């Protein structure tokens, strides 16, 4: 017993180092698996508050470009509004109950990140605004990510620039679909994999979300095809997609809530059983 205590006292530095290093590695491994980062995330009171007050100041510096983006979006929405007019789906008699499957909330990014391999953003909406895990996040130009952790006033977003993120996407002109992932090299380019070899793809084609995951509705813009090649087994295409969004300059975002999500998931789970 005496010897054990002596050993501990003699090696106390090394043992403390080992303990703390082990704890940090544990946290690291947790963040590398999806939705597991329980303790260490920036959606808490302290970090959220600091980022929020810093953003209050730094928000002024890019007011001009953000206003430009919002104005562009207003123009687009206004033209949609005046042109869409009389498109009646004959299966719906009550035109009010139609188009309500998705609910939108707006939010501001208070912390952006794009230079790491696993990037998380922080936004200034949280549980108080009924934001929950797995809601989609988009900007006026395209997709941004998926809500990961929420606190009372803040939430973290698993960016599409994250090696653990997988989002279902498809070609705009045909319905061939695959999944989006990121190889952590360029924050403007992400990869679309698992597109069938028979799909007719060309450089410059538009990629949109496929609506298969019940997070994003179908038809949210993602980007255009920059270049493509067959994968090692020559069955699927690997496509480099240039994002419409400039991920390095985003401020105003929209959060998409799929109202029917539970229903869809229950239905799909019922099929699997």
């Amino acid at each position, binding site marked *: 017993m005496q010897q054990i205590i002596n050993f501990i006292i003699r090696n106390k530095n090394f043992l403390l180092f080992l303990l703390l290093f082990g704890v940090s590695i544990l946290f*690291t491994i947790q963040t590398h698996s999806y939705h597991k980062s329980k303790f260490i995330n*920036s959606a808490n009171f302290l970090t959220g508050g600091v980022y929020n007050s810093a953003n209050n100041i730094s928000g002024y510096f890019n007011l001009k470009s953000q206003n430009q983006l919002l104005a562009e979006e207003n123009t687009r929405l206004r033209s949609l509004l005046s042109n869409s007019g009389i498109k009646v789906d004959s299966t719906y008699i009550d035109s009010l109950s139609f188009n309500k499957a998705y609910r939108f909330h707006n939010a501001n990014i208070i912390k952006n*990140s794009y230079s790491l391999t696993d990037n998380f953003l922080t936004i200034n909406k949280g549980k108080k605004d009924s934001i929950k895990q797995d809601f989609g996040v988009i900007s006026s130009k395209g997709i941004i990510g998926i809500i990961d952790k929420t606190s009372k006033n803040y939430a973290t977003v698993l960016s599409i620039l994250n090696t653990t993120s997988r989002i279902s996407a498809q070609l705009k002109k045909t319905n061939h679909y695959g999944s989006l992932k990121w190889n952590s090299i360029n924050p403007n380019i992400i990869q679309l994999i698992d597109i069938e070899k028979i799909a007719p793809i060309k450089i410059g084609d538009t990629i949109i979300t496929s609506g298969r995951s019940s997070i994003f509705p179908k038809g949210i813009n993602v980007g255009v095809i920059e270049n493509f090649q067959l994968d090692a087994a020559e069955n699927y295409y690997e496509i480099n997609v240039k994002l419409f969004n400039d991920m390095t300059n985003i401020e105003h975002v929209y959060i998409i809530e799929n109202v029917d999500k539970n229903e869809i998931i229950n239905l799909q789970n019922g099929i699997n059983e």
Partner: protein
Amino acid sequence: MNSILSIHTIRFFALVFVQVLIFNHINFLGYINPYAYILFIALFPVKNNRLILISLSFLLGLTIDLFLDTGGIHAAASVFIAYIRPVILKSSFGTIYEYQTIKFNTVDFGSKLTYFTLITVLHHIVFFSLEIFSISKIILILQKALFSSIFTILISISITIIFSRKNK
């Protein structure tokens, strides 16, 4: 003693805030950021207890991690350099360290540069290996570590020069 304590407390918080609010948004050439918060570990008094340094480094790293959503990467790298700091001190300052009389204001520039370089490079290699977390991307790890190290060393040296007290 009291003034030393308050200096280090202020330095701790100042470095965390500067790191989180400024240095992490530089993104020079897309991804190069300095991680100058390790100055806290580098400039910690040599005479003090190593247990305190290791615990404080963990706390410092974890605070940075909390802000940057990086799990425990900064904490691991900080604890690592805090643990092996005596070895680095010995190899860069030699015999002065033996007598435990280093004052970071008074040592000559060359050995100070060696000291910062060693501590920064080791920190960055551990940091980027954990961040990228894949052996197959070792080139990317080394590349990021190299570029960020250069940046960090430049910033650290500038900070120490700017904030050093004049010896009359």
